[in-house]
């Protein structure tokens, strides 16, 4: 084992050698420096490995032949080994990235860089507080020097602000140190810890000065203008190293010095948490308003520092898990933030919008996506597991306020990172300049991305819960990424086979409840994938993300623990986000989808956290036995799931997201994806049905939400000109019915719910596939631009006809089954008022459904559609397979409903349906699927024949039978009956169509942006103002911490 002292010796030795020898070539000096950093990395990682294997004990390294407190000593423990390894590893990659940038400044730049890394190593390892001060100063001086490798005035200004701010901070530290020495007679950190300085009033001031200096090194909001400027102004290659390596060292300084301030749970913990919370939320809030990429990264970095400070302050709550949480957050930040800064250095786009150029090289988009998702804490990255562990622990210890702080801050970060990513994926790319690929700059980033994925896997395997997660679907996603260069047909086949095989292996293990949803997800997924054969070319990036969504969906079905469920949930969210953003005009809708999803996921996370209180093991069954705050737990879970089902108030993302998506994506995200939310609701309601608490108020509220959603969704659908948006609004309405039905919490109610789930899956998939395929043929979403397509697309017409009959709930198709059960359940439950609303909503559904078939297929064919063909056979196959499903479910509903009833009887044993053959009896009456179907068919045929006979002489209307007055309307579509078709109806219900919810969310968004815009003006750019901030921060904190206690 090489002693860590050689880290210092090697850096100094080589540094002096390069200086003394002088004549060495620049590149040679550079390579020598890199080798030295490599050696430093080797030493620290050797120690890390020894600790990891477990045959190593923490070791003190003494210097100068004396023992402390006379001399300085270093400590190499597992934490030090890990942190120095990380610093040196990032430093090594940074050295490669910056190799030629240093070279331009001469060989001394390499020396300074080496000394900079060495000083961070010592800062981490040292146990002597004065030594700590010295090496903090060395690192500050080195940093100020290295900032200048970036040319231009901005770097010089930033460097000056930095050096003067750090000088003030270290002055404070030095005063604190000397007072601490004065009262204790030692400079050794361990000695200071034992001296219990903070127990005396005067010692308390020494502690205050030391702690405030350590806190200020972490760039707390708002005394951090200088830090922001350094991240923004210096070379992005170096900003990365400062933002993560220095930050890591600063974190550890705070960690070490916190021991001096007092034991776990002392007052300083609370202050740290408070300052961390202010920084985390403040930085991320101001980031929301930011338009420039570099500065945005700076805000994000400081937000992460705040999070680390917050976590450290919450160590009382985290207990033994502190290290795990810190490790997860730290390692994600290390790899992702470094990579992001370096990426910014390559892309060189200034504003967020200009980042659209990045997708010219799709691999870069993949890199950026990895960083964004890692920073937000999506699986499989380490931060995901850290966040989960943190929330579980905080909830268990009653730290609910802190959970809110962490989730709100993370959400703010999600806003700007996903907006940025949206620009990159879908923003307008109208920029002339391009960016170059240089291998020495790309390689470090690629290494970091690989490390990020691997670290995520390792983090998951570290805990028992994490080891239970099934990574096979995720691995399949990676395979699909790797074969993305293949043509679409090959990838489609592989995807279908993969999903089929997986389904074949897992379905025997599923109970009936899960089987229903799994069939919808997997079989439905395969059916919609078949439509993919209609596409030509490569369809880059489609299959990995589609399978990512299905991997998430099957993940939530197979989940045994809350962690697995949340893991699957987040994968599904990520995959569906990518699917949605593929649409042509999807950028804003994908963003709002993502933000609602992230917020919903956080609600679920918090709900799981509360559910977990007092439980031995976080299996998914804890939802059936929530012991504390059940209303909160179920309420949060339900809110989370309702964001996915797009219930009223949380629905504004859906119309755009589903309407603008690609033709085969719309059915995936509508017919299939929405059921994930339903599955969650079902799980929560099962738990509520088993709970010992009275949760009827919650169910009652849920019922109202469902009824209102049905009403507003359907009204919204009536006034759409866009066929896909019409279907999207219709989904909102249908999901409202489903939520309402489940909220009834009786056997009939649930039977209704499941019937609607199956129905909605079948007919919405049919309708979206058909309309999507038509859109592919005619090139427009607007219904008034279509018409008369019945002759061109008879198969599509028939599919839509069956689809709308089923959806409208008239006999003979399965929609009527749902309606019949629905009214039975409502009457039995006695929810008459809500029932009337739902019935009214059902009437409105006729309006939009009629419009769908009338304006697309009937009337006059448009001139430009004279040559359109029937929709693609690859769409017709899944459509007609699903139609068969509808017909079977309509004529023989007992095949499905009987076993379903038995399953539901586990939860609600009473008042179910009673079956005799194909006759179903409730206590209100009876009904038979086949009988109704037969009756209606007979009536239809008779009426049809009669009509045919009576209208034999009718004149067939041709296009040129139309006579008009020679006036040429300015907007010709306004003369079309299909345009604004229900204007009359609009006059009756317009108050219900006022987009109050949209206005509310717009207002919220404006509020956040305006607040951010106002607060960020404190960063005036004046270095002196920043120093004033630091001093004021110290004074205010003095009053908060010590105040009048002296």
């Amino acid at each position, binding site marked *: 084992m090489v002693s860590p002292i050689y880290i210092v010796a090697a850096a100094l030795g080589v540094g002096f050698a390069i200086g003394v020898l002088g004549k060495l070539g620049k590149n040679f000096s550079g390579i020598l420096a890199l080798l030295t950093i490599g050696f430093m990395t080797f030493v620290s990682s050797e120690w890390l490995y020894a600790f990891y294997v477990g045959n190593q004990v923490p070791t003190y390294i003494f210097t100068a032949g004396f023992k402390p407190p006379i001399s300085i000593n270093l400590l190499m423990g597992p934490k030090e080994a890990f942190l120095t390894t990380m610093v040196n590893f990032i430093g090594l990659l940074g050295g490669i990235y910056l190799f030629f940038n240093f070279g331009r400044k001469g060989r001394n730049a390499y020396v300074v860089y080496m000394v900079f890394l060495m000083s961070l190593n010592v800062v981490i390892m040292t146990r002597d507080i004065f030594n700590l001060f010295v090496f903090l*100063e060395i690192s500050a001086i080195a940093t100020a020097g290295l900032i200048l490798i970036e040319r231009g005035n901005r770097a010089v200004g930033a460097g000056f602000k930095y*050096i003067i701010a750090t000088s003030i901070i270290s002055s404070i530290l030095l005063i604190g140190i000397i007072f601490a020495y004065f009262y204790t007679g030692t400079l050794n950190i361990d000695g200071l810890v034992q001296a219990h300085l903070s127990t005396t009033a005067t010692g308390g001031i020494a502690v205050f000065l030391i702690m405030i200096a350590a806190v200020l090194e972490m760039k707390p909001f708002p005394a951090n203008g200088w830090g922001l*400027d350094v991240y923004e102004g210096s070379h992005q290659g170096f900003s990365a190293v400062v933002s993560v390596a220095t930050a890591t060292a600063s974190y550890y300084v705070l960690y070490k010095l916190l021991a001096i301030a007092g034991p776990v749970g002392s007052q300083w913990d609370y202050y740290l948490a408070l300052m961390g919370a202010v920084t985390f939320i403040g930085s991320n809030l101001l980031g929301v308003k930011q338009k420039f990429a570099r500065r945005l990264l700076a805000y994000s970095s400081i937000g992460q520092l705040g999070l680390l400070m917050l976590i450290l302050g919450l160590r009382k709550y985290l207990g033994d898990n502190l290290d795990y949480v810190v490790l997860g957050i730290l390692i994600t930040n290390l790899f992702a933030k470094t990579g992001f800064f370096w990426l910014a250095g390559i892309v060189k786009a200034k504003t967020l919008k200009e980042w659209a150029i990045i997708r010219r090289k799709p691999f870069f988009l993949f890199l950026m996506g990895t960083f964004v998702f890692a920073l937000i804490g999506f699986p499989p990255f380490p931060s995901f597991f850290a966040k989960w562990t943190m929330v579980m622990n905080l909830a268990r210890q009653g730290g609910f306020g802190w959970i809110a702080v962490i989730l709100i801050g993370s959400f703010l970060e999600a806003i700007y990172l996903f907006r940025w990513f949206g620009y990159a994926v879908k923003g307008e790319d109208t920029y002339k300049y391009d960016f170059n690929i240089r291998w020495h700059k790309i390689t470090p980033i690629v290494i970091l991305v690989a490390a990020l994925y691997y670290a995520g896997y390792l983090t998951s395997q570290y805990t028992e819960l994490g080891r239970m997660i099934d990574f096979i679907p995720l691995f399949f996603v990676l395979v699909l990424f790797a074969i993305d260069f293949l043509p679409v047909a090959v990838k489609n086949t592989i995807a279908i086979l993969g999903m089929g095989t997986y389904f074949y292996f897992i379905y025997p293990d599923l109970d009936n409840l899960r089987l229903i949803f799994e069939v919808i997800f997997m079989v439905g997924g395969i059916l919609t994938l078949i439509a993919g054969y209609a596409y030509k070319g490569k369809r880059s990036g489609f299959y990995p993300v589609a399978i990512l969504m299905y991997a998430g969906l099957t993940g939530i079905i197979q989940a045994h623990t809350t962690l697995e469920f949340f893991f699957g949930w987040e994968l599904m969210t990520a995959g569906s986000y990518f699917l949605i953003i593929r649409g042509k005009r999807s950028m804003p809708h994908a963003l709002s989808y993502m933000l609602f999803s992230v917020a919903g996921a956080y609600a679920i996370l918090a709900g799981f956290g509360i559910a977990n209180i007092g439980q031995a093991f976080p299996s998914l069954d804890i939802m059936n036995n929530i012991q504390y705050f059940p209303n909160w737990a179920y309420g949060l879970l339900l809110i989370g799931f309702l964001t996915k089902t797009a219930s009223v108030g949380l629905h504004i993302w859906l119309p755009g997201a589903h309407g603008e998506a690609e033709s085969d994506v719309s059915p995936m995200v509508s017919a299939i994806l929405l059921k994930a939310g339903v599955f969650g609701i079902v799980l929560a309601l099962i738990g509520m049905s088993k709970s010992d608490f009275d949760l009827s108020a919650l169910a009652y509220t849920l019922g109202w939400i469902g009824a209102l959603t049905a009403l507003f969704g359907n009204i919204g659908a009536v006034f759409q000109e866009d066929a896909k948006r019409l279907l999207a609004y219709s989904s909102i309405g249908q999901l409202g019915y489903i939520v309402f039905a489940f909220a009834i919490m009786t056997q009939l109610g649930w039977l209704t719910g499941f019937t609607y789930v199956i129905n909605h899956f079948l007919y919405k998939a049919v309708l979206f596939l058909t309309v999507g395929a038509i859109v592919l043929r005619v090139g427009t979403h607007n219904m008034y631009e279509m018409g008369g397509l019945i002759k061109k697309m008879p198969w599509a017409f028939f599919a839509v006809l069956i689809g709308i009959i089923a959806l409208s709930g008239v006999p003979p198709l399965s929609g009527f089954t749902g309606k019949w059960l629905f009214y039975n359940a409502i009457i039995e439950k006695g929810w008459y008022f809500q029932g009337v609303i739902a019935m009214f909503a059902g009437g409105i559904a006729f309006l939009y459904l009629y419009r769908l078939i009338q304006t697309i297929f009937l009337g006059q064919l448009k001139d430009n559609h004279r040559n359109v063909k029937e929709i693609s056979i690859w769409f017709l196959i899944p459509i007609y397979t699903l139609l068969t499903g509808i017909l079977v479910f309509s004529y023989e509903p007992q095949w499905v409903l009987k076993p379903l009833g038995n399953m539901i009887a586990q939860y609600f044993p009473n008042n179910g349906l009673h079956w005799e053959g194909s006759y179903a009896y409730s206590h209100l009456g009876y009904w038979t699927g086949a009988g109704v179907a037969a009756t209606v068919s007979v009536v239809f045929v008779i009426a049809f024949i009669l009509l045919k006979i009576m209208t034999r002489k009718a004149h067939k209307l041709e296009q040129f039978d139309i006579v008009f007055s020679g006036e040429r309307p300015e907007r010709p579509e306004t003369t079309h009956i299909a345009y604004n078709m229900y204007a009359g109806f609009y006059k009756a219900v317009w108050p219900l169509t006022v987009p109050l919810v949209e206005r509310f969310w717009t207002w919220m968004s404006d509020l956040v942006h305006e607040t951010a815009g106002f607060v960020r003006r404190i960063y005036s750019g004046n270095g002196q103002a920043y120093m004033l901030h630091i001093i004021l921060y110290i004074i205010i904190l003095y009053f908060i911490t010590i105040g009048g206690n002296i």
Partner: protein
Amino acid sequence: MEYLQLGRISLIISFLLIIIGFWGILSQKNIIKIIVSFTILDTGINVLIVSLGYLKGRTAPIIDASVSQGPNHNVLNAIVDPVPQALVLTAIVIGFGVTALLLAYAMKLFKAKRTLEINQFNDLKW
């Protein structure tokens, strides 16, 4: 005269210097003056370190003729605390380095905009 012993005087002076330093840093607009204020602050801290280590009636911790080295005489009782003395040396060196760097930056800043007013260097903000 009890109030005017050496340790107390130097302590008061050190705090005065620190306060003057902070005042200068916050109030002066000229970068050179800010740097000078910073060195005043530094000096104040150095004096503070020394005066906290001062013990009445003792001499510098240099073992030479001024420290009697009789057999029954513990050297440690004749000298002031040596650690602050060592610290102050280090602090002076660091202060020197930082000041040099600040002056170098001042040069760069002047070259960039032909002015030393700190208000003029606010390219990075918000």
